[in-house]
């Protein structure tokens, strides 16, 4: 492909890339997106050599004044947009930018038009960068980088002198033969891509080393937290149901101790409730107190277990990335012992729930050490024994339910003797005799629990859990309802659980006299939650989610503190490397080292050396780049010249034309040079003038300028001659 055509293509692709970026990031209005897309496609088609499209485009083009007027109209539209329609500077600016791009696309004539287009697309890609932090920006940006390098290289290599009003001639002018066009060669291809890759590498280095501020301030939906249900002070029965189909990700839980046990399920406890009024659960024990900070950033819960039993269950270490939610609750596996994260303070209430002072507006990361609570052997054999007063006061409350629930509970449990066995009996009764369905009736019932237990026998987690709690309480066993998430989606690529809105769950905590609170879940495993689709597709989705997580962690959330950590690590690494090198060197050059030892010691003490470690490679790299730029060893190989010789053909054509004109009465005298003959023909036979002129020009170029005509020009000349032959002379 010739350079100039390649340049046009690359320029339009550049604009397209930034357009795509902006469309995805800013959510352009449909009409504008369609219009811009159409303009881009039209420009592409025109350059692809579609003659008819090109002609059409030139016909529909307005005059320069028209375009200028359009720009002014667009500018006025920008103000209207900013003041009344979108009401903000950034969206209005983006819309105006697209209008400018459309106008520019139809006016790509001079080289400065191309420069304008590049400027517009640069602003567009920057705008889309500030509007988003999503993962798709990475491929778009990479594409932009590659196309950008291509475009600028081509722009430099096609130095067509235009711009008639510039006075100084900076570059020595060489008469470029018109027909010898530089081509895009494979070398050029690889060079351009290599440069782009190198640029990207350099960008990465700069990204990780130069201090930065946060990104994505203007992104769509920034500051809007995900709406969750079931984690406020009061929860209506049936509130969790509607969100069970929402797949948006709420958090990701990394487990440092490898994949989970317990059939791949992990309970993430949120809030516990003690009071049920027949329709809604409330938490009366919501007095929150600050948790003491042990070490900086680590909060320890000493009293989360009511019993001071030294025998404890397994510990679970979790690293949780919580998306911005509308609740301040911190989720973790039961029961939390220690939380560390970048929080100024955290609070907990008497039911062991943990809260931030206020909901976070950005993704937060914290790690938790939890310890599961197993059933102790004492409880397995114990008779119903005495509960502490505080437990009895709060966790035996029953709404004014009809007697049949109590009767049912007694019926189920009368054969059992221990508390634990009774609880298990109710648990298995609920698990086996009821059907799980999300289509269960929602709220607006007078007696949702009775409805569930006796009429419909269909419901979801909240119904199961509420039923179990109330039944346990009617037979005197303290229990409470817990809401949270049940993580089931294990991502084996990133070793973490993906927790979605639809994983919201409610379950039961039963109080045993010796063991304390233990977790029981009467809800049968959900079948509906598992989506359809092939396993490969799911694996791909998980892989993508892993990438998205790392993107968010290492690029979007990459902060000055992380930067410091990276620098520290690098420094530690380089120090050890330097020490190693120094050791081996010193054995080799011990005599010299003795001499320079003092100096080396002095140097390694100061920060000068670490500075030099950064500066010296940078300078060397720059020098190499500069050298390459000056010498440009690749340029020779890259620009090849086309040397097809069609001179003979055009001379034959010219001869035939002369002969034909002579037969028509316009003879070429020997003393008549070619251009004079053209003038003579134009005087005598004006219709033939243009054809004769164009053939003569090609002939002169080939004959006297040694510039062979191209194939297209030859076929054009043949057409001209054919027209001339058919033309009637008046």
């Amino acid at each position, binding site marked *: 492909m010739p350079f100039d055509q390649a340049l046009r293509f690359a320029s339009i692709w550049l604009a397209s890339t930034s357009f795509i970026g902006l469309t995805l990031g800013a959510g352009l209005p449909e009409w504008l997106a369609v219009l811009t897309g159409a303009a881009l496609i039209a420009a592409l088609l025109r350059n692809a050599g579609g003659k008819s499209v090109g002609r059409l485009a030139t016909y529909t083009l307005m005059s320069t004044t028209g375009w200028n007027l359009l720009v002014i109209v667009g500018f006025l539209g920008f103000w209207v947009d900013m003041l009344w329609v979108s009401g903000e500077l950034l969206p209005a600016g983006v819309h105006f930018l697209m209008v400018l791009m459309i106008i520019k696309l139809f006016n790509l004539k001079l080289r400065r038009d191309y420069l304008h287009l590049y400027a517009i697309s640069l602003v567009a890609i920057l705008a889309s960068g500030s509007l988003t932090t999503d993962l798709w920006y990475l491929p778009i940006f990479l594409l932009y980088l590659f196309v950008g390098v291509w475009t600028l290289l081509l722009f430099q290599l096609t130095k067509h*002198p*235009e*711009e*008639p*009003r*510039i*006075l*100084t*001639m*900076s*570059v*020595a*002018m*060489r*008469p470029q*033969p*018109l027909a010898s066009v530089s081509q895009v060669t494979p070398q050029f291809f690889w060079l351009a891509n290599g440069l782009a890759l190198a640029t990207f590498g350099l960008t990465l280095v700069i990204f990780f080393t130069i201090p930065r501020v946060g990104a994505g301030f203007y992104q769509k939906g920034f500051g809007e937290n995900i709406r969750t249900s079931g984690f406020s002070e009061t929860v209506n029965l049936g509130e969790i149901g509607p969100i069970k189909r929402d797949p948006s990700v709420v958090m990701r839980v990394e487990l440092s101790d490898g994949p989970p046990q317990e059939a791949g399920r992990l309970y993430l406890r949120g809030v516990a409730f003690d009071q049920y009024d027949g329709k809604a659960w409330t938490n009366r024990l919501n007095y929150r107190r600050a948790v003491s900070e042990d070490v900086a950033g680590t909060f320890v819960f000493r009293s989360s277990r009511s019993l001071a039993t030294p025998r404890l269950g397994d510990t679970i270490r979790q690293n949780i990335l919580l998306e911005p939610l509308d609740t301040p609750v911190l989720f973790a596996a039961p029961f939390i012992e220690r939380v560390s994260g970048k929080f100024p303070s955290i609070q907990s209430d008497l039911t062991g729930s943990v809260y931030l002072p206020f909901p976070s507006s950005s993704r937060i990361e914290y790690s938790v050490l939890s310890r599961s609570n197993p059933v102790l052997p004492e409880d397995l054999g114990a008779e119903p024994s005495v509960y502490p007063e505080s437990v009895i006061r709060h966790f035996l409350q029953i709404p004014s339910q009809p007697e049949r629930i109590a009767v049912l509970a007694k019926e189920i449990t009368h054969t059992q003797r221990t508390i634990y066995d009774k609880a298990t009996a109710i648990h298995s009764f609920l698990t086996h005799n009821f059907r799980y369905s999300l289509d269960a009736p929602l709220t607006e019932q007078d007696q949702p629990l009775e409805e569930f237990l006796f009429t419909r026998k269909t419901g979801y987690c909240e119904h199961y859990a509420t039923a179990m709690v109330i039944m346990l309480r009617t037979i005197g066993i303290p229990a409470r309802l817990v809401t949270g998430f049940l993580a089931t989606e294990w991502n084996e690529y990133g070793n973490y659980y993906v927790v979605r809105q639809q994983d919201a769950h409610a379950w039961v905590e039963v109080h045993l006299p010796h063991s304390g609170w233990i977790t029981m879940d009467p809800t049968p495993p959900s079948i509906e939650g598992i989506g359809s689709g092939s396993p490969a597709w799911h694996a791909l989705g998980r892989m993508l989610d892993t990438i998205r997580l790392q993107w968010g962690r290492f690029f979007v959330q990459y902060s000055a503190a992380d930067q410091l950590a990276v620098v520290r690590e690098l420094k530690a690494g380089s120090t050890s490397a330097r020490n190693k090198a120094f050791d081996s060197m010193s054995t080799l050059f011990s005599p010299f080292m003795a001499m320079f030892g003092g100096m080396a010691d002095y140097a390694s003490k100061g920060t000068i050396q670490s500075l030099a470690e950064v500066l010296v490679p940078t300078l060397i790299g720059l020098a190499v780049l500069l050298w390459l730029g000056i010498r440009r060893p690749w340029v020779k190989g890259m620009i090849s010249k086309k040397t097809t010789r069609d001179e003979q053909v055009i001379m034959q054509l010219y001869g035939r034309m002369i002969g034909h004109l002579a037969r028509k009465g316009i003879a070429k*005298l*020997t*003393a008549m*040079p*070619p*251009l*004079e003959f053209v003038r003579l023909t134009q005087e005598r036979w004006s219709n033939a003038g243009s054809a004769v002129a164009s053939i003569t020009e090609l002939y*002169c*170029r080939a*004959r*006297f*300028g*040694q*510039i062979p005509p191209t194939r297209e020009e030859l076929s054009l000349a043949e057409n001209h001659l054919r027209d001339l032959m058919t033309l009637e002379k008046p």
Partner: protein
Amino acid sequence: MNPTDIIRAIQENIARVIKGKPQVIEMSLVALLARGHLLFEDVPGVGKTTLAHSLAKSLDCSFKRIQFTSDLLPSDIVGVSIFNRQKQAFEFMPGPIFANIVLADEINRTTPKTQSSLLEAMSEAQISFDNKTYPLNQPFMVIATQNPAEYHGTFPLPESQLDRFLMRLRIGYPSPEEEKKVLDRPQSLHPAEELRPLLATQDVLLLQEQVDRVLMEESITDYLLAIVQRTRQSDLLSLGVSTRGALALSRAAKALSLVRGRTYCLPDDIKELAPIVLSHRIMVARTCCVNLLPFFSECFATGRRA
């Protein structure tokens, strides 16, 4: 930046002052680019001086004008040595020839001695004074004018000196319409004063280098040489074109190609330039004034056959 566009811009610039004479403007640019000197031979008041002035103005070049009179001395052109009392030495004060474009007005009015002082400057682009040589500014171009109507009290330029001018041009009267435009212009300001420079000095040198790169195909060189040969053999002429003349024609043809935006010469260029480049280099044998154009036509035909 395209040389053709620059040249076109300069042409348009000058054309704002010199109305209706695009060919003359084009040819004076050709002379400039071919590193040649110009001789305008025409009646007074047709814009010879204005043209020279406008050309200099368009180029951001230094411009000096010397009005040649019979009592003009070489030192008035070249410069003089003046005794400096502080330094106790003679100091050379450069004359008006040390400019990029020098207008020698009515060159045939002055004595041969003074004329010849211009000679060295024109051919060698340097000045010898007190056994020292001083290089002249580059680009250097002499635009001389002479009045053909009035020969009384003049010293016609010798052949050797005429040969140093690249071309001899006539401007001629403008058409009535063009003349009307000239009259309609406000008279208070000299028209050339409002021109602004379009090209820097070093860019003129660059353009002159460009001329050397223009391709002259072998057959065209043959054509040129055939014409030159013909003038030497003709009975009509007592003096034919010198080798310097042939060289001048070749350079002028290349410059014209560049001015017209080509990278190669055409036979048309030679044919168009031959009368103005060659006519002052030949001497007609018979004094009964002959129209030389038919002769040239014959030459061209010869050349084409060759």
